[in-house]
């Protein structure tokens, strides 16, 4: 019984290895690293929340092939990215380029952080130095003074 369990779990462990996608032969480890980085950073347009590496869509397979072939021809990572953006637009990039249309995207969170910091500092400063309403103090004093002492 125990043996069957062990074999079963060993087989489970094998399953993901067999599900791997097409195996490309790379000339160098560097090219392989470039390829892996690209397919992880490029979006599959069919199943929009997956990257090329994780998608089993037909188009993703074609774009992986295209990526591999371009690298094999000696093209740089940047050239592959330009190729994809020319055809599919910025949407294909999981890491958008830093340019005029994406300034807000990149800088927005920091702007928001700055706003919150300014708000917080002002809030803390005013809390440390409570504002005294001179008019209210004068009125309170008047009421206290005018009140007849208790018998």
């Amino acid at each position: 019984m125990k043996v069957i369990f062990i074999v079963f779990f060993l087989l489970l462990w094998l399953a993901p290895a067999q599900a791997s996608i097409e195996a490309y032969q790379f000339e160098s480890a560097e090219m392989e690293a470039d390829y892996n980085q690209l397919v992880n950073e490029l979006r599959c347009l069919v199943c929009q929340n997956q990257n090329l590496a994780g998608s089993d869509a037909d188009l993703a397979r074609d774009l992986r092939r295209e990526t591999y072939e371009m690298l094999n021809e000696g093209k740089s990572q940047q050239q592959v990215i330009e190729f994809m953006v020319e055809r599919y637009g910025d949407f294909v990039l999981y890491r958008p380029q830093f340019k005029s249309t994406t300034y807000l995207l990149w800088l927005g969170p920091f702007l928001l952080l700055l706003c919150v910091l300014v708000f917080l500092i002002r809030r803390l400063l005013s809390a440390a130095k409570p504002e005294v309403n001179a008019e209210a103090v004068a009125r309170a004093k008047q009421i206290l003074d005018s009140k007849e002492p208790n018998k």
Partner: protein
Amino acid sequence: MNRFVLPLVGFILMIGLLGYGLQLDPKLVPSPLIDKKAPAFSLAMLEQPSRQLATSDLIGQVWVLNVWASWCVSCRAEHEVITALANRNLVTVVGLNYKDEPADAERWLKQFGNPYATSVIDRDGRVGIDWGVYGVPETFVIGADGMIKYKHIGPVTHESLQQKIMPVLKELLG
């Protein structure tokens, strides 16, 4: 009272923004190819594989490229609309038979009717990649100057033909 104004304005702005976002279809990715030169191809014709059709052959006329495949279910839905467009004889309607078996494609055309002036074979989908095709069917309008003027993603309906594609064609045809 005053301290509620700012959060309320923020809240309304946020609702407005999110409401606008809900109206958008995340499946529609704007093509960077609009108002760019149509990517060149020279491909074998489905009807006569010995002959080729090139984008350069179509310079000087307004034409429509409809990407279709026999395995594409929604292509059947738009087939009658494409046929209606072709029957008006306003523009040349070219089919791009995308990643298909030519035999299946021919059978499909025989079964449903062939609205295309000609269909070209993009067997491995490379021309599709050049044109930024990511879901079949897609429809492009190309001007006489060889520039892509409009791209429709997904099946063309009678409404989208009337409201989106026809105005573009009318403007191009003058």
